[in-house]
């Protein structure tokens, strides 16, 4: 990945994150939830960034499984880590919102349960990569594809099953006053996701180069 891309993406995401609070403060209070609803402007974008990372993981895993491209494998590892990080943001901001608006820190509804399981699947991917030994890269790629397959179900879970989460129709029908800070934050998180992918992929590239050099030393 281009070395110059990471500082550019980081600077761009910083701009988004510095401006976001201004837009969020200016956004109106929601009628039912009041101030606590403003967690939405970080909670929803964090999950969108996580979904993006999981899609990158899944597609890179498919390319690695069928084309055996090492660069795809490195990108998959980077995407898995980024997805865990954004999922962690979502799993922490969610209960902070829930305790005020639902009266409980956690509830095992379809969406929260599936989100937790997806996070665990991603952790399993990384554990397999780090401790699975030879051949674990291909096995992990299968897990990466499975993780990607979960995303559509997670997204429509509020429509299919009866959950305490608001339905998916809320976001597309948001008034402009709510929509502007939301989509600004989503853009910021997407740029941050790409910054993470760039940096983490570079780490994997460096590790691969190091492995090649160690092999060259052994051959000598």
């Amino acid at each position, binding site marked *: 990945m281009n070395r110059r891309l990471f500082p550019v993406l980081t600077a761009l995401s910083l701009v988004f994150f510095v401006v976001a609070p201004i837009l969020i403060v200016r956004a109106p209070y929601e009628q039912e939830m009041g101030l606590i609803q403003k967690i939405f402007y*970080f909670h929803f974008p964090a999950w969108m960034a996580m979904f993006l990372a999981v899609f990158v993981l899944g597609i890179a895993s498919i390319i690695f499984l069928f084309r055996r491209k090492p660069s795809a494998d490195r990108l998959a590892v980077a995407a898995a880590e980024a997805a865990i990080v954004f999922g962690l943001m979502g799993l*922490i901001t969610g209960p*902070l919102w829930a*305790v005020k608006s639902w009266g409980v820190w956690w509830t095992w509804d379809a969406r929260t349960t599936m989100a937790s399981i997806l996070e665990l699947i991603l952790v399993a991917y990384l554990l397999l990569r780090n401790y699975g030994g030879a051949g674990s890269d291909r096995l992990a790629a299968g897990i990466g594809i499975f993780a990607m397959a979960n995303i559509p179900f997670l997204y429509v879970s509020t429509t299919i099953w009866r959950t305490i989460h608001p339905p998916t129709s809320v976001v597309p029908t948001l008034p402009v006053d709510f929509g502007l800070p939301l989509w600004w934050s989503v853009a910021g998180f997407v740029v941050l996701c790409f910054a993470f992918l760039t940096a983490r992929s570079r780490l994997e590239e460096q590790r691969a180069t*190091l492995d090649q*050099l160690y092999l060259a030393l052994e051959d*000598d």
Partner: protein
Amino acid sequence: MGCLAVQGATTALGAQPQQSAQDGFLPMDDVPAEDQLPAAPLLAAAYAVVWAIAIGYLWTIWRRIGSVERELADVSRRVTEREGR
């Protein structure tokens, strides 16, 4: 007389009259304002957590890249020295 003395002593020590145990918990519909959770600290905590996780993760990547690049420089030097022999 002795019983009265004991009872008087007990009351003087501030013993509370026994209450019957609560049978169960019942939900409250309208929570008083002083018992409600404040929203601002939760909101601030959520934003702080997001920033902390993002910065923390970037810092871990920076550390790991630094470590690998140092090792890379060392191994490259050893390979070059061996090829020079």
